[in-house]
């Protein structure tokens, strides 16, 4: 397309956006990818999933180094060099974003650094370093993601009060750290900072940490967080925040009625879709409460030729959902038959131990009146787990009693996120609990716990 005529425009270069852009290019579309960041990858690569996993790896190494005494290994007191750690993390991020740049170049995707808003149903206004320009598009995919929710009534511009982005910058290890919000992001930050020596207090409004996760697994994680030295207050909310030059005071109510004195706070109370920043109404699009742009199973919005993918389309705000949607938007708008045809979206908390789940969990099966059974295998009886640190672990399977088909799974334990993949596939393929029990799992592996749980359901387990 010549000049400012664009065939296929993607706003936002996160996992949903670049997937849409690259897939569309592979389908022969002429693609323009717009993002305000100078690097591709969005929040996920630049200040989310990837840098947090790098810090979690470092935290695990640091923590394990101190846990090897009983194996006869003593490294002495490990030393932390935050500057080197930041460099390492940033190198990983730039490797990945650089890789994306290559992939974009290979596909002749033209990348525009700037912020886009809708002028009307066929035009975008883009503010970039080269000034303002108007783009006429044939198809547009909104993939502008989400931003951390900022708690109202809190002091602004106090560097000691951070969101997840600030926390990942790892400027220092505060002595006393409060984390408001015990969801996945809050728990991962607690895992990092408690490993590096912060005295962490998690404040969660709901009655359990990791809302939405399996209740039993979440309880095990709660205990593990406490064993790492974290204090966890559920059913608690922050009523008032006062700051002095030396401390931040959080006045709490609920299960914990007290004032907490800390040196820094991380706000991790969720993310808000960015649908409100696009002037989407100019394109005739309705932006729903909390900035959500609603889509159907083909990622179509209410406006013709406007698609939306990822966090901006609402929960669950997960990169792998966004990627899947991105490809669907590219395919549907290019005439292919594609559909987001599943409820099975895995969730992983990269805590210590990890916790991962997918499908219908016991509390959901109960609430929905699904005739189900639960079958679980505690990792205390897993040889592989005992020989590799004996961290707490549990594999729980939920199956539909009449058909014996697996409908949900939750795992807590080392590598839970990796182990879950087998169960996601099993649910998608319609595997029964007998299929799992009759599939040979290598010994000794952690994946055996899946087979053992299934065998328990089938009544054929000899390891428990």
């Amino acid at each position, binding site marked *: 397309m010549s000049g400012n005529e664009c065939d296929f425009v993607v706003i936002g270069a996160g996992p949903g956006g670049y997937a849409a852009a690259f897939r569309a290019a592979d389908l022969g579309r002429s693609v323009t990818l717009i993002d305000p960041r100078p690097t591709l990858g969005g929040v996920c690569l630049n200040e989310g999933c990837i840098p947090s996993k790098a810090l979690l790896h470092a935290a695990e190494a640091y923590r394990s180094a101190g846990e090897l005494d009983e194996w006869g290994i003593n490294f002495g007191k490990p030393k932390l060099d935050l500057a080197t750690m930041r460099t390492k993390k940033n190198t990983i991020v730039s490797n990945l974003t650089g890789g994306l740049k290559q992939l974009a170049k290979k596909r002749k995707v033209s990348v525009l650094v700037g912020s886009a808003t809708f002028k009307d149903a066929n035009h975008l206004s883009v503010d970039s370093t080269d000034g303002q320009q108007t783009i006429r598009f044939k198809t547009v995919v909104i993939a502008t993601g989400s931003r951390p929710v900022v708690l109202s009534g809190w002091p602004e511009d106090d560097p000691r009060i951070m969101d997840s982005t600030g926390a990942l910058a790892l400027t220092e290890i505060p002595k006393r750290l409060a984390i408001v919000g015990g969801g996945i992001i809050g728990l991962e930050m607690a895992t990092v900072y408690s490993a590096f020596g912060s005295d962490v207090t998690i404040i969660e409004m709901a009655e359990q940490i990791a809302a939405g996760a399996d209740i039993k697994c979440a309880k095990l994680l709660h205990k593990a967080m406490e064993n790492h030295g974290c204090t966890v207050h559920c059913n608690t909310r922050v009523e008032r925040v006062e700051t002095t030059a030396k401390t931040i005071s959080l006045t709490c109510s609920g299960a914990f009625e007290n004032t907490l004195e800390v040196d820094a706070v991380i706000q991790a109370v969720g993310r808000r879709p960015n649908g409100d920043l696009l002037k989407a109404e100019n394109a005739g699009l309705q932006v729903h409460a909390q900035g959500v742009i609603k889509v159907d199973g083909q990622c179509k919005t209410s406006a013709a030729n406007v698609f939306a993918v990822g966090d901006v389309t609402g929960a669950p705000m997960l990169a792998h959902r966004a990627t899947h949607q991105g490809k669907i938007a590219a395919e549907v708008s290019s*005439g292919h*038959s*594609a*559909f987001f*045809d*599943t*409820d*099975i979206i895995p969730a992983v908390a990269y805590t210590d131990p990890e916790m991962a789940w997918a*499908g*219908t969990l016991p509390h959901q*099966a109960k609430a*929905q009146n*699904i005739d189900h059974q639960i079958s679980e295998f505690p990792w205390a009886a897993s040889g592989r787990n005992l020989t590799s640190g004996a961290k707490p672990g549990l594999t729980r399977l939920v199956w*539909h009693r009449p*058909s014996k*088909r697996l*409908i*949900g799974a939750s795992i807590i334990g080392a590598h839970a996120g990796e182990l879950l993949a087998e169960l996601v596939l099993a*649910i*998608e*393929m*319609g595997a029964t609990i007998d299929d799992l029990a009759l599939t040979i799992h290598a010994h000794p592996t952690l994946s055996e716990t899946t087979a053992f749980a299934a065998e328990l359901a089938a009544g054929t387990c000899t390891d428990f």
Partner: protein
Amino acid sequence: MALKGISAATPSIRALARKHGIDVDELALELEQGFVSESDVLLKAKGGSPVSPSSGYWDVDHGQFGPGEAVPTTRFAQLAAANLTASQQHIPAVTHHDKVGMDAVESFRKTLADEGAKRGIKVTALVLHVMALTKTLRKFPTFNASLMPGGKELWLKHYYDIGIAVDTPHGLMVPVLRGTNRKGIWDIANEVSKLAKRAQNRKIKPEEMGGASTSISNLGGIGGHAFSPIVNPPEVAILGLSRASYEPVWNGTKFEPRLMCPISLSYDHRAINGAEAARFCAHYASLLSDPRRLLL
């Protein structure tokens, strides 16, 4: 069935079913199965096998009426049969008949004879038909289209690929001539003859079939003055060509002999209405009655 978290098919089979506009949960209910397989979906998509052994109409003891023998049908014929049956079952088709004056095309073809001989390419009337059809599709985009599953949208194709039905010893084949809007008369003539030859020798690759804008079924070399071609789904129209012959045509003052080619346009009435079809044919005829108009 249709229980949250329990789907009636694997992801790839669900995608296949979507492609055919089939709801797997409903199909599972219909089949009284907990799980739907690939063959369940394909069978449903084709509306059942055309010569299904369970169909009573064909379950006849022919021997009681006299001697005969069963000979196998080819795989091509079986595949074509499934498509043709699906077309008749699912498409409310109408055939519009018209006639096209071919005198100007014939004299133009004569002027190309020498150059054609040098190039080793014969410009048949079919080549001009392909060009006229391509040009007419540009003016009538809803003929270069497919209905989407569910029937709420029409997929307009931004390319011009013409399927040519070829009669071969092993059955009917419809190889596709790609990008005819970008090709000139010699290229099209060359490709038409090569495609036909390769079809006769069964050398057409799977990717050379399917995805056409619309198709031509040409019986001009054999005979007849009209027929009702069957639309090749998911296309919305097919153009049948019969044998051209000299007819007296009233020019306003007298009858004059004109070479007239009967055309039969079958179309999916869900996507195209009768007046549009008549206009389509009239435009088509105007292009061929004066082939210079193909340049416009």
